[in-house]
């Protein structure tokens, strides 16, 4: 199979795409268990990833200066085997060495820490891509960069599918990384047999295998747990599709961590009681109750104090439910309880049932995904599934002694958004600030309401609460938020943007220079790149932005369905591979065609905004959504791939430089997309406007390609 040299290189390129993509998914997941999980942090990590890979590719142009080229390739492939493990381990090692126990990691640490951690792997993988291109070109293989790009994309597609649908479910993180290691070892072996069948080759390979033995026998997964949780008793540590789930036991208390954050501990009576009773007490005869997320903390048992007929509890992650069943009695012994493993929003849209009380236990809207549960569209959908005078409760986590400017705005936004849909909204300040909404009358006199029901509560009772004090604290907040009307929309996630500002304020991120530092490479690039590479940059930027937008839009319109997100990325990559590999119209590429495709990408971006605008209100037509998204993704991937292959045909600066610069340009653009679009532009401007901006950017770039000398 690999008898020919070019096949062995092609296999290496495939493995490069395969390992790089899986490593990227794994590292991003691992970063999320130690970092703060908002889009800015994710954007920073992804962007660092791409900038470093681009730099690696750029350095690839110096490849020809090396004397022992073949050896270099083999050693690089071997390093590619081990670096993912070293990189992943170093995330935890550095965190435990430099961050105080339990402390949230700030933005500076995120920016520089991830840069440092990712440097070896990303530089190497970018460098190797170019090296493989050169090697294949040396074998007189035509249109080589486009083809290499396509093979790498194909490797990524396979990697993404294999990881998301198989490996993730079967093995722990480091076992998966060991599989990658073995694949790279195989690739290295094949290279040695094809290129370097001599003593030096075999010695390097032998050393590689020895190292592999060391890596294979060490249990890194438990070492990493040890670094994170030290002497704690860790009962569960599981990679689920929705993130990492860890359960520890400290004395008699079970602590549930999702992505490194302790979401819930047993013995937490205050939050459980508050999240149930403030809303339940408002309804005269609550029978059908819906709990969205968080029910495993003991909410159903509290609800059960009111003779209800049904409690439907929707939780996205089945692993959480299984763990709760295993370690707590919170979900057992309640016959009325019906647990549904679905995306909450999707369930609400599709169910035929109607509810008297809906309890939303959603973390603050720090990401667009969470923001979906705080929008006017969501409350509208929810209201359709509520009986007359039904009551809904949701909350924000701020202190109620004083609200910062951003917190005031977040509260005001939620309040006015609820007010658009429900006739009455009240705010009950507790350990968290609860927002209760209904078309029926609502009261803040909790103690008075308690007197009407005969409940035995440990915290929500007349001993801890006092109506007068509740009202005075509630008024204290209301005075600040009353006059501020802001509405949070699905496609215009105002609350998420406010949360981002709140967080930046919290971590005292008041100096902008690290961000300017981050933007600097882009600015330099834009001014220095030639027109072809500028086109690639713009396309990389657009493609990544559109991919992010389509993932977000899909989650909003359809729901967070793990398999679908995997599919979205895969379809995009298939488009990419297809576009890069084929010249559809069999045309001779010239600069006009190249500029034209830039315009097409621009038009396509605007088209995406129009389609999203049209699809969004027609939520009923779920069946149409799959093909629409599939087509959008495929086309955007294909256009990107095509432009890449056109660019490489147009560039004539000599092969090596050509390959290295075009790959770097594309990645640079993607990096800017990951950072600027997801973290700032979408929350600040909304999805539709961002699509329009993408359109305009491409028109300008298209024009400058035509005009620039």
């Amino acid at each position: 199979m690999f008898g020919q040299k070019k096949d062995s290189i092609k296999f290496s390129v495939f493995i490069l795409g395969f390992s790089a993509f899986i490593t990227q998914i794994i590292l991003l997941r691992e970063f999320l268990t130690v970092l703060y999980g908002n889009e800015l942090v994710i954007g920073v990590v992804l962007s660092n990833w791409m900038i470093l890979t681009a730099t690696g590719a750029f350095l690839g142009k110096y490849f020809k200066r090396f004397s022992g080229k073949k050896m270099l390739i083999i050693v690089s492939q071997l390093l590619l085997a081990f670096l993912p493990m070293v990189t992943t381990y170093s995330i935890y090692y550095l965190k435990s060495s430099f961050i105080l126990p339990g402390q949230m990691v700030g933005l500076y640490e995120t920016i520089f820490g991830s840069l440092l951690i990712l440097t070896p792997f990303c530089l190497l993988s970018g460098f190797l891509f170019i090296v493989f291109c050169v090697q294949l070109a040396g074998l007189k293989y035509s249109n080589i960069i486009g083809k290499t790009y396509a093979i790498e994309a194909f490797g990524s597609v396979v990697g993404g599918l294999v990881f998301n649908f198989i490996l993730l479910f079967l093995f722990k993180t480091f076992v998966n990384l060991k599989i990658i290691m073995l694949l790279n070892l195989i690739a290295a072996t094949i290279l040695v047999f094809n290129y370097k069948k001599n003593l030096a080759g075999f010695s390097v390979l032998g050393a590689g295998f020895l190292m592999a033995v060391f890596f294979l026998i060490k249990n890194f997964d438990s070492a990493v747990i040890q670094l994170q949780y030290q002497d704690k008793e860790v009962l569960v540590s599981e990679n689920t599709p929705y993130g990492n789930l860890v359960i520890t036991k400290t004395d008699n208390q079970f602590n549930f961590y999702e992505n490194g954050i302790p979401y819930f501990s047993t013995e937490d009576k205050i939050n459980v009681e508050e999240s149930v009773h403030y809303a339940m007490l408002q309804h005269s005869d609550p029978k059908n109750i819906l709990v969205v997320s968080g029910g495993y903390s003991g909410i159903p048992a509290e609800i059960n104090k009111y003779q209800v007929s049904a409690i439907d509890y929707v939780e996205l992650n089945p692993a959480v439910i299984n763990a709760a069943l295993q370690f707590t009695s919170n979900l057992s012994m309640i016959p009325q309880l019906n647990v549904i493993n679905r995306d909450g929003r999707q369930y609400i849209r599709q169910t035929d049932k109607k509810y008297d009380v809906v309890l939303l236990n959603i973390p603050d809207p720090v990401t667009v995904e969470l923001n979906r549960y705080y929008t006017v569209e969501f409350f509208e959908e929810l209201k359709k599934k509520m009986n007359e005078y039904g009551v809904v409760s949701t909350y924000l986590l701020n202190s109620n002694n004083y609200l910062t400017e951003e917190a005031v705005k977040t509260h005001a936004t939620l309040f006015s958004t609820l007010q658009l849909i429900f006739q009455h909204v009240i705010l009950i300040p507790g350990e968290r600030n609860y927002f209760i909404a209904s078309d029926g009358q609502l009261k803040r006199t909790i103690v008075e309401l308690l007197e009407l029901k005969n409940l035995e509560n440990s915290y929500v009772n007349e001993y801890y609460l006092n109506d007068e004090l509740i009202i005075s604290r509630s008024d204290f907040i209301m005075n600040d938020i009353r006059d501020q009307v802001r509405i949070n929309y699905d496609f215009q996630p105002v609350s998420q943007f406010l949360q981002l500002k709140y967080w930046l304020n919290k971590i005292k991120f008041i100096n902008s220079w690290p961000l300017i530092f981050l933007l600097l490479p882009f600015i330099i690039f834009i001014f220095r790149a030639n027109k072809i590479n500028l086109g690639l940059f713009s396309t990389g930027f657009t493609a990544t932005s559109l991919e992010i937008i389509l993932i977000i839009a899909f989650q909003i319109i359809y729901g967070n369905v793990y398999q679908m997100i995997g599919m979205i990325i895969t379809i995009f990559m298939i488009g990419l591979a297809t576009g890069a590999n084929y010249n559809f119209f069999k045309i001779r590429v010239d600069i006009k065609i190249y500029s034209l495709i830039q315009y097409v990408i621009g038009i396509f971006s605007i088209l995406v905004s129009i389609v999203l605008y049209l699809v969004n209100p027609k939520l009923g037509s779920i069946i149409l959504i799959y093909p629409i998204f599939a087509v959008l993704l495929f086309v955007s991937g294909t256009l990107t791939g095509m432009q890449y292959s056109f660019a490489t045909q147009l560039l004539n600066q000599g092969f090596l430089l050509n390959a290295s610069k075009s790959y770097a340009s594309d990645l640079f653009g993607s990096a800017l997309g990951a950072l600027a679009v997801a973290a700032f532009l979408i929350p600040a401007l909304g999805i539709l406007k961002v699509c329009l901006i993408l359109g305009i950017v491409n028109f300008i770039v298209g024009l400058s390609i035509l005009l620039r000398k």
Partner: protein
Amino acid sequence: MVSGKITKRDFLKKASMCIGAAGCGIYSPGIFPNTFTNLIGIGNGHLPEIDLNKWTIEAKYYVPTPKGLKCLLCPNECKIKTDEFGECHTRVNLDNRLYCIAYGNPCAVHIDPIEKKPLFHYLPGSRSYSIATAGCNLACLNCQNWEISQTGPDKTRNHDLMPDKVVEEAIKSDCKSIAYTYSDPVAFYEYAYDTAKIARENGIGNVLVSAGYILEEPLKEWCKYMDAANIDLKSFSNEIYEMLNAGKLEPVLNTLKTLADEGVWLEITNLVIPDWTDDMDMIKKMCNWLVENNFENYPLHFSRFHPLYKLTHLPATPVQVLENARKIAISEGLKFVYIGNVPGLESINTYCPECKTKIIERKGFNILNNKIEDSKCSNCGTFIAGRWK
């Protein structure tokens, strides 16, 4: 020192122009200077309007040094250059005089049950009029009130509540005391001092809820008007104090001694944070020190940690850990040890240290039963320390 010198200067210039302009009620918060932060809009873009005459008072404790004014209020002993602020965000050097800009401008004003402070042996079942301005001389990673403690009064939305008005409001709302709380009263020392003086004249009690990070002389002066204090003894290790709170242990221990010597009713809170302050040997040492220094009659509250501010990656303290700490404290000889932040525990009741009778039965913040008569256990006559009436 706090950065942002230019803004501070701008703010002060602007502020002096605005004398008399800011009316009563709430005024706008300040803004960070930075272009980027303006772009994404942290803060609201207005310069603060502060009436320097009204909400600013010359600091009581400082001396000039060649390196700037040295503040002598708390152990940080900041040396503050012209137009710069001290670490607590409330003290500023203006033309070589040190001013406190936290005076009559609290940003948090609430009425709380006194048990919520927590004070269990001081006017049980009463309400406390609770105020705080922005600013704090420590920087705890787990601060419950970081929104106000880690900033200054020039950046918060404040109320106009001069000392006499505070007392008036406290009386109106049927509060038996005024609590200087939430952030740390050391940061608004002069405001708390003047309010306490008027409150004392009007028969209203004064309660400090503080980390006790203050120098002896100003503290002694404060003690003249303070009736009770709940002091956070955050740990019993200097190293932890430095890493977790940006403070030191010794001054806090000194504060405890001074308060007791000056006759202020004292209760101590110890927050048990997993991985930080949950070492039972350290807790034992702390209790031992308390007993050796005659604090056994002052209540000790062990409080439950919840993930907050920057310590978001730690779970809540297990109740069992708090129970263990309580057992240790009792066996070391402390007479009144309580567990806070956990509803439904028996350990919020007061038991007679001699006959073990439940002399105060509490439920939540309410007193169900009080068997203390003339500061004595009604069953065996043992003296029960506290300010009961």
